[in-house]
């Protein structure tokens, strides 16, 4: 986009280090990776560079909920991230401690480093991860989280607290890491990489690394008994941690406590890289004392002699109530300051990357005086997440799910480029390489359109043995694709030629054809949505003056500060009667202003 940007980190070499599960993507999250990639973000390409195991989750269901997921070699992933950011033009990397925001008249004008250096900048983005006020818990042990020099983190945290922002605490956790050489792989069911050849980014020409397999084991009754006997030693149950953790990724002690009747819980043993023996046991995140962790591990089949290299722990950290942010992730009370990642109450690399992208694009656009890409709930999971965060706030670490997207049928992981790359080009954030790829692909799209509109008679399909009544008449290929049992493969006699040119685009267009009736109905809905997005509500809209709104409604709406009437309708707990009252009042104000 042409903005001059500096990236400040206490340890530049740590950029790209994965602090938790070395997996990228998954259900809902895979969509975010593809969308970040479609807007030329780093995550997808780096994931491909590090990938050593690929799975398309939900493959048996409709493609809109397929979740591309890779496991990455930590070393290779980090190397790729480092290479990409160092090659990025206009980006200066600065090693140092961000000590304090420089404020002037209430707005950010720069950043002060610990050595006293002042960097002036009209826009500053804060990405603190779990390090803001972080505390690590393991059994009875406590550690101040903040490997990044406590003084620095404290000064910034102190400044933020002083700014009277709505802060709260959340919790997340990680499992113990095992030495793969001490696992008896031979007795375990294995899960191979899918070998299908797809990649996270279309710019990755082929899978780069050897693919390894994972193994599946289970927790056992003996392990559960040990957990139950020691629940009081877990900080989650002793009361030491009060903050909410992710319901979607519970600790093993949580699982035992809540679903005690289950005989065992599945655990995936995931290799952390090609050059390391470390194994990540996915499914037993825990903050139990080390001795209990060892018992739990060693009561799992295949892990009877497994060694823990690094015990698991829970971490509790500060975050900002994201309702204090505007839809561009800017702190409403401190213009010029943006926040992205766990500081906004989310969990996961993918959610963090997507927010980093939004904050970066919006901050750059604002600094340059141009408009950022027009993202909304109808075109991206990214916007769904930002809208959810800034409107609803969080009560637990926010994780992307496909259920959060109402227009899911059109927001597929495999059509992210079609949805977003064009918007990215308009916003000026797409690099040359992707631009060239896009131009080539859009030319192909035309050829697909021509092929799809070719008309074929039902007899011809029936002659091929396809489940179609012979008297069904003549239809275009795209119409035939809506019929049960008519797949793109079944129409190979007509489509194989173009399919060979770009199998990924072929798949996407076949799905568009199959979903066409649903997409058409959603179009109508989206028109309504965009119409009510047109009635904007100022962030200081006087909800208290809307007659008939209960105090609770006023509080919810004031906190969420919906930007438009449509957004107000999405604020949870807002009743139809309240919404109508708001509409009428907002319209009256708008009319009054017009009249005046």
């Amino acid at each position, binding site marked *: 986009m042409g903005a001059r940007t500096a990236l400040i980190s206490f340890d530049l070499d740590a950029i790209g280090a994965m602090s938790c599960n070395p997996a990228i993507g998954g*259900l809902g999250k895979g969509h975010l990776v593809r969308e970040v990639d479609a807007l030329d973000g780093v995550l997808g390409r780096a994931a491909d560079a590090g990938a050593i195991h690929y799975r398309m989750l939900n493959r048996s*269901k409709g493609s809109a909920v397929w979740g591309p997921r890779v496991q990455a070699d930590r070393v290779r992933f980090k190397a790729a991230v480092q290479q990409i950011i160092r090659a990025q033009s206009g980006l200066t990397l600065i090693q140092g401690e961000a000590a304090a925001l420089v404020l002037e008249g209430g707005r950010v004008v720069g950043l002060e480093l610990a050595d006293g250096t002042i960097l002036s900048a009209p826009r500053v983005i804060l990405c603190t991860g779990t390090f803001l006020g972080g505390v690590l818990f393991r059994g009875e042990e406590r550690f101040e989280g903040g490997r990044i020099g406590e003084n620095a983190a404290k000064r910034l945290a102190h400044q933020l607290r002083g700014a009277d922002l709505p802060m709260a605490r959340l919790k997340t956790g990680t499992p113990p890491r095992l030495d793969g050489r001490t696992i008896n792989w031979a007795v375990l069911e294995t899960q191979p990489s899918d070998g299908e050849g797809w990649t996270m980014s279309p710019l990755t020409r082929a899978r780069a690394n050897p693919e390894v397999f994972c193994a599946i084991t289970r927790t056992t009754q003996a392990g559960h008994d040990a957990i139950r006997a020691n629940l009081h030693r877990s900080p989650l149950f002793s009361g030491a941690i009060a903050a909410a953790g992710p319901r979607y990724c519970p600790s093993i002690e949580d699982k035992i406590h809540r679903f005690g009747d289950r005989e065992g819980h599945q655990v995936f043993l995931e290799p952390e890289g090609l050059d390391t023996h470390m194994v990540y046991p996915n499914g037993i995140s825990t903050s139990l004392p080390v001795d209990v962790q060892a018992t739990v591990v060693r009561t799992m089949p295949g892990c009877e002699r497994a060694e823990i290299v690094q015990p698991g722990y829970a971490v509790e950290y500060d975050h900002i109530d994201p309702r204090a942010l505007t839809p561009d992730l800017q702190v409403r009370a401190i213009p010029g300051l943006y926040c992205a990642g766990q500081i906004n109450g989310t969990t996961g690399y993918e959610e963090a990357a997507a927010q980093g992208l939004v904050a970066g694009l919006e901050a750059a656009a604002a600094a340059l005086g141009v408009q950022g890409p027009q993202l909304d709930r109808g075109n991206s999971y990214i916007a769904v997440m930002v809208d959810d965060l800034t409107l609803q706030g969080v009560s637990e670490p926010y994780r992307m799910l496909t259920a959060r997207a109402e227009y899911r049928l059109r927001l597929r992981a495999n059509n992210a480029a079609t949805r977003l790359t064009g918007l990215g080009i308009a916003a000026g954030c797409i690099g040359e390489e992707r631009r060239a790829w896009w131009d080539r692909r859009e030319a192909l799209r035309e050829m697909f359109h021509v092929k799809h509109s070719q008309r074929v008679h039902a007899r011809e399909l029936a002659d091929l043995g396809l489940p179609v009544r012979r008297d069904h008449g003549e239809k275009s290929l795209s119409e035939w694709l809506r019929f049960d049992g008519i797949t793109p493969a079944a129409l190979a006699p007509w489509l194989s030629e173009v399919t060979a040119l770009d199998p990924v685009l072929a798949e996407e267009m076949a799905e568009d054809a199959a979903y066409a009736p649903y997409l058409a109905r959603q179009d109508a809905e989206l028109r309504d949505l965009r119409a009510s997005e047109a009635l904007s509500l100022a962030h200081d809209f006087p909800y208290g003056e809307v007659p008939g709104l209960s105090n609770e409604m006023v509080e919810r709406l004031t906190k969420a500060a919906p930007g438009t009437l449509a957004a107000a309708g999405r604020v949870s707990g807002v009743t*139809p009667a309240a919404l109508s009252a708001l509409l*009428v009042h907002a319209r009256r104000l708008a009319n009054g202003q017009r009249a005046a």
Partner: protein
Amino acid sequence: MTSGPTIFALSSGAPPAGVGVIRVSGPQARAALQALAGRLPPPRRASLAKLRDGAGGLLDEALVLWFPGPNTATGEDLAEFHCHGGRAVIAAVESALAKLPDTRRAEPGEFTRRAFANGRIDLAEAEGLGDLLAAETELQRAAALANLGGALSRQVESWRAQVLGFSAEVEGVLDFSDEEDSADLPECFTWNIAALADEIGTWLARPRAERLGEGFRVVLAGPPNAGKSTLFNALVEKEAAITSPIAGTTRDVIERSVALAGVPFTFVDTAGLRVAGSETDADPIEAIGIDRARTELARADLVLWLGPEGEGPDGAWEIAAQADRADFIAKPTARFTLSAATGDGIDALRAALMAAARDVLPKPGEATLNARQHARLAEAGASLAAARTLHDPLLVAEELRRARVAFDRLIGRATTEDMLDTLFGRFCIGK
């Protein structure tokens, strides 16, 4: 509560009447009371006051009431003057009110619009109020009252909650397929959706709210001089005529709308329908009349056939009329034998008509759907019907989401402006 100018209107029936109730709503309601009654009575209590105009002239002696906002019907400050119901008194009080600052006569629907705007009622309730104000019969009133009381809103909220539960089940399968618990939908899932779709189907099959407005349509048919007009007059004469919502009677079709024991009816007298076979002889003008009569027969809920036995339209009731006359020809299969001139058999016919109408019209106290609500509910029903047949959980989830959108629109959770305008255009003044 600042909602623009203060409005007033006569909110009881047209004068002259025993009592005329004039309602005032808005920030000046307090001032209006003080100006006309000379004081502010205690809240929510009727008290007697002498009403005077600005010059001190006595207008009337009336009951006055004071309801401070926001817990009032409109959500604003509200005053009521229960005056004597003569035209002159009403006119005098209204003109005194109109002279107060920032106070004007209400526009059609404005009181309800303010109630709605102030979050006092939701969309379905507002529509119920609209129906209530238009109600002219007991049955219409009871149905509208059910909607105004939120019966429909509550029902829709309950359906919506059920669908939300179904959605949660499907989303569990879609988003947590890695967890062992939620690999597949339980068998009862489709059954539960089917049960809900059926329940909505029975609501859709119920008579619509508009049916109440139109009334039960009874067409009297038969050849000229078969006694139709006499019977028509006997059926409608003693009843208070109500205004028909249907405009335009043709020169050869006479219709009257009446309420029989609170049940709305429209009786139609088709003059000169010839018996089958003879219409080839009809001249062009007569042919037009026959066409009209046919149209009437097609629109009828019930045809009373006064012609020769067996020659009436299918489903018509055979009536042997003019039983008092010397040349009376008995009809062996007649459902009723009667004489409009003597009144014999008329009461029995009337009772039978009321029973037939009650079967077709909405039941008293039952929430009814108007055309808009019916369309939204039909969308929800169609989505649920589709959801029960689909196998791809992704598409099932989409249909369930569509059903929720339809529910939201039905009760106004997803409000659009044009719908509001349509809604408020149909309210009478002053309510």
